[in-house]
């Protein structure tokens, strides 16, 4: 390292400066959204109030009145949490079997699962609407939870599989010798050992569920509508209500962005499917 560390002036001043500029540039749109959310709708579009303005909390206080925010937020929390739980409930045993008792078909099954994610959702929108309306499931929490689970299941199983693969087989086999049954093995040995991997998989699944914006918008009207639906349905034309739109947008992405900050490292490791070390 000694040789590499003896760097030029660029290494000492230029690189950090440039890095900070890039970081701030990427963050700027989010910062701008939050800043705008403290302006009144009128101030938000006036160039003279671009940076200097009288901050107001009205947009956040009136969020319930303007957008019925809490109802959508509640639906987002319910569906994302339940979908994550259900996906893990189905995904953990599946990934466990694939990692510790692989067969010749395992690779193909995994590839096939991933390929279901490439099916264009729009191609099956009409049949889906038709089926769910006939079955009386349209616009229910149950349906959204199921759909979110199915969308994310391939990625979740992939991620879990890559984590489980890292666990030495001997440990699991030792458990089998002790006479633990499969559920016991999963509960007593696998889950404690792979806890970090499972947690980051769950977080990523939760984030994808929260941000999903195709099915949640098209398979709901009111009862199960999530924050994605709220934002898509209320995009104001041509600069009306920038202030309140910013506030509700910030409130919609805030929890997830903060959550993401805390677990960025784990998320990335999972998303590389174990192929990047």
């Amino acid at each position, binding site marked *: *390292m000694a040789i590499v560390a003896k760097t030029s002036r660029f290494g000492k001043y230029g690189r*950090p400066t440039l890095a900070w500029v890039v970081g701030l540039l*990427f963050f700027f749109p989010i910062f*701008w*959204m939050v800043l705008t959310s403290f302006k009144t709708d009128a101030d938000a579009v006036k160039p003279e109030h671009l940076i200097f303005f009288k901050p107001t909390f009205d947009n956040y206080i009136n969020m319930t009145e303007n957008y019925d925010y809490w109802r959508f937020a509640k639906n987002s929390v319910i569906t994302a949490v339940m979908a994550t739980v259900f996906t893990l409930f189905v995904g953990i045993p599946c990934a466990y079997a694939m990692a510790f008792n692989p067969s010749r078909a395992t690779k193909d099954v995994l590839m096939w699962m991933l390929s279901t994610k490439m*099916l264009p959702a*729009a191609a099956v929108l009409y049949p889906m609407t038709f089926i769910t309306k006939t079955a009386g499931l349209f616009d229910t929490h149950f349906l959204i939870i199921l759909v979110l689970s199915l969308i994310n299941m391939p990625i979740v199983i992939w991620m879990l599989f890559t984590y489980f693969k890292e666990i030495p087989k001997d440990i699991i086999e030792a458990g089998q010798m002790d006479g633990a049954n499969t559920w016991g093995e999963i509960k007593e040995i696998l889950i404690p050992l792979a806890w970090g991997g499972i947690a980051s998989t769950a977080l990523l699944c939760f984030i994808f569920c929260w941000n999903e914006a195709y099915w949640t918008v098209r398979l709901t009207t009111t009862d199960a509508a999530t924050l994605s639906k709220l934002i898509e349905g209320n995009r104001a034309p041509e*600069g009306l209500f920038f202030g309140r739109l910013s506030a509700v947008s910030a409130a919609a992405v805030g929890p997830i*962005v903060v959550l993401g900050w805390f677990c960025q490292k784990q998320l990335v490791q999972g998303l590389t499917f174990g192929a990047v070390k």
Partner: protein
Amino acid sequence: MSDRKLPRLLQTPAVLLLLVWMLIPLGMTLYFSFIRYVLNSLRRPEWTTPSFSNWRGFGNYEFVLNSKDFLFAIQNSLFIVCSILFLTVILGVLIAVLINKTFPGQGIVRVLLISPFFVMPAVNAVLWINMILDPVLGLQGIAVGGINELIDGLKDAPLVGWFFGMWPELQPISFRATQTSAYAVIIMVTWQWTPFAVLIFMTSLQSEDQQQKEAAVLDGANTWSQFRFLTLPHLARPIAIVVMIQAIFHLSLYAEIEIVSRGNGNKNLPYLIGEFANNNIGAASATGIFAVILANIVAIFLLRMIGKTLME
């Protein structure tokens, strides 16, 4: 229970669920694509219920192939996906190399950089098209207005006035317009997914062989050839992964296209299906089948490319 049966049993729920999720809608789409099926028709009310007696054979497919938007939508789908892939990979590599060495505040810069990745697509689109790219009220409009005013002021200045007098008035770009809406989508998705590429490349760079690098420095290799012959080959696998995951997500872009211009001048295949589905379910389904075929071609290509590395 034997050792062989149990693993299969544990996989069954997941496999079964995904199979149903794939096959039932796909089967129905296939069926609808071969019949005449519309939601509203005053002249032919019998077409409004799906039935084998409305069999149309490949008529829907022919109709779709002959519609003026179809080829454009395919081209545009590929244009958008490839542009985003190209930009995110290039920017991702550059930024990852830039912030890979320790410097004051590295942790904070990482947090700032990753943030866009967690923003939901609907908010991303609303934020960019309104508050940033809008030609009048967004930052773009305000910035262009400000520059024009500044130049106007300088035109009357002594000595340099003649120089600024030759400058034209800048025009803000309307990103909702037919020609430019695709660029708006590319900008906002690139903004959202570059952080993802950066983080994956960074993870990979941290495992780069430092001794090899030192040896290269001793041999007199300059920064460029270090990057070209050591770093870039090291990044081949992460680049493949970034390309695959992004292709999966971006082939089905929808919210951004809807919000930017409602598909005006900027349709991709999913959006075209959505437009057909407003009335002509048969045509929408046929387009859907084309989209499935396109997705499969891309999938085979991608999985061939990196399937092996994933299983190692």
